[in-house]
């Protein structure tokens, strides 16, 4: 147990060190521009998986949380000129509250009904923001980036590193949950909610906790996006694509282990970035759809499931 912890934190430190080193060594802006998006999707997929994977409650409202993160940052920046860390922390708090409220309202519903409720919530929130003039309304809002802080010499490089920090945070939280009593309880209620209750699992409270944590992380992932684009508008901030991509990444990676969504987000995110550059950004959606169908049919437990099956076979072969 302890040894895997050392490996994990060493890996995390190496990852952050590598990200920081990249910002210092690479002059070209494009890798950071593309890398930021991939990192952002890792955070989204990992946090989605806390509720969608461990608990099995398929949330189509990723865009609602992401968009609220964007607009929390926009509002704070316009109203008070708050610095980036404050924007992110506030977005996490807003996301937690939103997760709590949404969870209370919807987590009593099961299966497809919960999913539909999360789509409805996304539309309601988007409509509210579209009609809020102060943050730009439907036309969107332009933002002027403040000066960048050392050791970074470029704002996008800094955002890239900040998003890398969020990746480590999200993965550490998700890993902790998976390995703790909370993960066991979520897995139990995913398998059978009544049996879990009758074995002492407080199912509603656990689902709420998962929803709050997942919401806080997704909102935090959205906050730096305002400064990344220097612009925000409701139809892109609350775009359904965020919900679909996040879900696809988690499912393709596999939701049984914290590493699944990480792998899924890296594979799909990188593919999307390559396609955007080589063909067009429209092809992304097509490829996403095809990959999702392929995985659902051929490997319903995702890449993690494939790896486990392969290992089991090899062990049996040896035995």
């Amino acid at each position, binding site marked *: 147990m302890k040894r895997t912890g050392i490996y994990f934190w060493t890996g995390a430190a190496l990852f952050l060190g590598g990200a920081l080193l990249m910002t210092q060594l690479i002059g070209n802006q494009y890798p950071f521009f593309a890398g930021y998006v991939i990192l952002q999707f890792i955070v989204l997929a990992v946090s989605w998986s806390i509720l969608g994977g461990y608990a099995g409650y398929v949330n189509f409202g990723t865009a609602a949380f992401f968009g609220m993160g964007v607009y929390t940052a926009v509002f704070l920046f316009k109203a008070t000129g708050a610095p980036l860390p404050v924007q992110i922390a506030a977005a996490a708090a807003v996301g937690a509250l939103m997760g709590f409220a949404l969870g209370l309202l919807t987590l009593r519903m099961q299966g497809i009904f919960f999913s539909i409720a999360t789509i409805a919530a996304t539309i309601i929130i988007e409509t509210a923001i579209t009609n809020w003039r102060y943050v730009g309304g439907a036309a969107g809002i332009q933002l002027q980036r403040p000066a960048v802080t050392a050791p970074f010499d470029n704002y996008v490089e800094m955002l890239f590193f900040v998003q890398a920090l969020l990746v480590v945070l999200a993965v550490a939280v998700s890993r902790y949950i998976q390995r703790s*009593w909370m993960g*066991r*309880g979520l*897995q*139990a209620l*995913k*398998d*059978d909610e*009544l*049996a*879990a*209750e*009758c*074995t*002492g*699992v*407080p*199912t*509603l409270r656990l689902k709420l906790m998962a929803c709050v944590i997942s919401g806080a992380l997704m909102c935090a992932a959205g906050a730096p996006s305002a400064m990344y684009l220097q612009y925000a508008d409701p139809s892109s901030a609350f775009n359904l694509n965020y919900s679909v991509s996040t879900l696809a990444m988690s499912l393709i990676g596999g939701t*049984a282990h914290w590493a699944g969504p990480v792998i899924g987000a890296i594979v799909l995110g990188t593919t999307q970035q390559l396609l955007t550059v080589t063909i067009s950004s429209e092809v992304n959606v097509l490829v996403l759809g095809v990959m999702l169908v392929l995985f659902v049919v051929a490997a319903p437990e995702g890449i993690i499931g494939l790896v486990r099956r392969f290992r089991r076979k090899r062990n049996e072969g040896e035995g």
Partner: protein
Amino acid sequence: MMEAETQTPLLRISALTKRFGGFTALDNVSVDIPPGERFGLIGPNGSGKTTLINCISGAFRTEPGTVTFRDEDITRLQPHMRTRRGIARSFQIPRPFRSMTVAENLMVGLDFAADTSVIVSEAQRREAMMSILTRMGLASKANVSANQLSQVELRKMELARAMATHPKLLISDEAMAGLSSSEVDEVLDLLMSLADQDITIIMIEHIMQAVMRFSDRVMCLEAGKIIAIGTPDEVMANQRVQEAYLGT
């Protein structure tokens, strides 16, 4: 068991009624179960046996009527709160946590409802898990996925998982249904040995031989009403019970 009658009951069900729309599944059911009793619950299909234990374990909310457990009114408590107070159950159709191993199934109970005055550390939880599995004859299956168990193993695992929540009252809902006669004896012996450890047991069963051998007292339900309650012999001799069962 006779002196148990004079104690305050472990479980008291008073005037319990459960309706599904216009259908009355339980009609004004009252019964006291003293600590340590082996209580058999019988009745034809659809007579309300499982509904009654769903009301006791909290899966159903009851309208009129109260459930009192160890002098506490638990009528409004959620199932997990009742489990933590000492009411455990198995299911008529086994409901294991299929994505987990047998050991992990038990760990859920130990994580969330273990006796925290005795079991504190992870090591103690694992020890308790292994000792329950050994007692249930499942030790060799600890690391097997719940998906791969045979019917009798599933039944035993459900009882083992219930035991992991350190129950004072264990409700066994047809734990022997679909088992061969040697397997029935095996599960019955298990339940007997649990009853010897101060666990009060309510057993729902269709296999009469098992009910007769097991129970101190038997209650027979028909159409949501109690039609007979008493010693096994009394209940079997009852005219209405015979009519309900044999349809004569």
